[in-house]
């Protein structure tokens, strides 16, 4: 499970970095979204991967899964969601102001 998750995070990050380096705003926004997915999964995994355990210590349970990364991920998701919404609106605004969707406003319109 650890190997699979690492591969997924790595792949998401690679795609995110590649897309974020593109010259048009839409791929950049997508890249940022991929990056934030990768980061969220990474944060989640930092509490160690456990299966079938309660998030708080319960009587009779063999152990527990760390609840703090889950709280962190939740916060990160909310913030990431707001940022994505903002950057999409900003990209649309830049498209309208600059006449094209190149990040430097230089491409063919």
């Amino acid at each position, binding site marked *: 499970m650890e190997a699979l998750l690492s591969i997924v995070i790595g792949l998401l990050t690679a795609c995110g970095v590649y897309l974020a380096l593109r010259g048009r705003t839409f791929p950049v926004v997508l890249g940022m979204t991929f*990056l934030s997915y990768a980061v969220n999964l990474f944060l989640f995994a930092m509490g160690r991967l456990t299966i079938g355990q309660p998030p708080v210590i319960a009587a009779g349970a063999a152990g527990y899964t760390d609840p703090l990364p889950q709280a962190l991920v939740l916060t990160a998701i909310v913030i990431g969601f707001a940022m994505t919404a903002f950057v999409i609106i*900003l*990209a649309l*605004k830049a498209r309208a102001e*600059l006449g094209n969707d190149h990040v430097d406003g230089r491409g063919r319109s």
Partner: protein
Amino acid sequence: MNTWPQTASLGLADHLTVAPVLLPLVAGIVLLLARGAGIGFARAFGLAAALGQLGLALLLSGAVADGDILVYALGNWSAPFGIVLVADRLAVWMLLITATLALPALLYASRGIDGHGQHFHVLFQLQLFGLNGAFLTGDLFNLFVFFEVLLLASYGLVLHGGGRERARAGLHYVVVNLAGSSLFLIAVGTLYGLYGTLNMADLALKAASTPAENLALARAAGLLLFGVFALKAALLPLYLWLPAAYANTSAPVAALFAIMTKVGAYSILRAQTLMFGDQAGPMANLLDAWLLPLALATLILGMLGALAATSLRAQTAYLVVASVGSLLIAFGLGSGAGIAAGLYYLAHGTFAAAAMFLLADLIGRRRGEIGDRFEPAADIDRAYLLGGVFFVAALLLAGLPPLSGFLGKFLILRAALDHPALPWVMASVLLAALFGVIALARTGSLLFFRTCSQRDGNASAPTGALWTELAPVLGLIALCVGLTVLAGPAHETTGAIAEQLRAPYHYIHAVLGGQP
């Protein structure tokens, strides 16, 4: 200070630590709800809230002057389980600078720039909310959240007023900072995975006993964190976003942003002295190898940028980069004297850069179409007055005697005297000062002497209002003059801050209570 206060004994005074965070938040919400009440109300209320923050910062600086560290456990969850706000001398010094800077910026904006778009005052207060929170928090993830708050508000402020250049610069600014936020989360996640805590005091304790097999990972996480803070501070390879964003936004926003790079510098200083300080065992002095060389290069490149800039605001933005360089040189020296000099220079650099941003807008609007670009234009009205103010601001930014810029540079050089890298520091700081003088002298002669004789009629701004517009600039310059006249007490204060930072045990003890 008791970290587990009984609820019954909590008086108003105990809540003082959280007040600088709550006040701008509440003010921002009220301004948002009362957006129908007109711009006059928003201005008065925003100014009152900024004044209130200045009062709170003064109260807090009285409370921490004796070396007390105030710890406020949010929700009464004690550290390291809950999030704590920590007001030590450094945090309060930063709060004081922020509140002092906010007033002139807000006054200047209230001359009409705040009406160019929506919600200026709401965003301004939320920006202060994020700044104050970032300075006060004692928790790494909470620091991330406050970074996001201040960034989100700053995105709105950068774009305030709209326009082509602003949209483009804003897009770059937002995307760069989004990438920075992702890196911040990766660093925070790694640290949590290694140490199981995000409380900075607790991290400092646990970092000291990092097992050897985790050391590489821990150092990677620490340096990643440094990279993120360096991005916010606009340190060498990561400063490219700053000039365009600062040069294209509106003047009061650029003035307020003079403190934004200092948030990064503050975070670097905090990490360097607390988490990666001398006592941190295998993690000790993690940043030292990088900080000084990068800061020296930043200073030189910032000044070269100022030489090459084609408008006054772009030049000022590069001077902000250079002042971050000077600041981090001082922090990078790693001695108490260096930190004290750096904190003195931080206050000076923030006020001086803000004054120049406001002045650039004042001058630019009097030159008609050409604005603040470095091209010959018609004579401007009241050129003697504006030129005189520009001269003083230039003295401040270039670091020439007799004003606070010179004192700051002098203190930094004096702190470097017994440092092995002294030749490098000396050469860079003095060379940068030369570049600064050349750049600003050229700007001054171009703006005020090399003018075309004919005057195109549409270049006029309302001349009668000059004094009221100039008042915030003069206020900021007066602050720098105050820092010059009261250099002794100010340097004593920053010396006390440095002394407290050099003994992180007190901070850790205050946050974690009786635990060793």
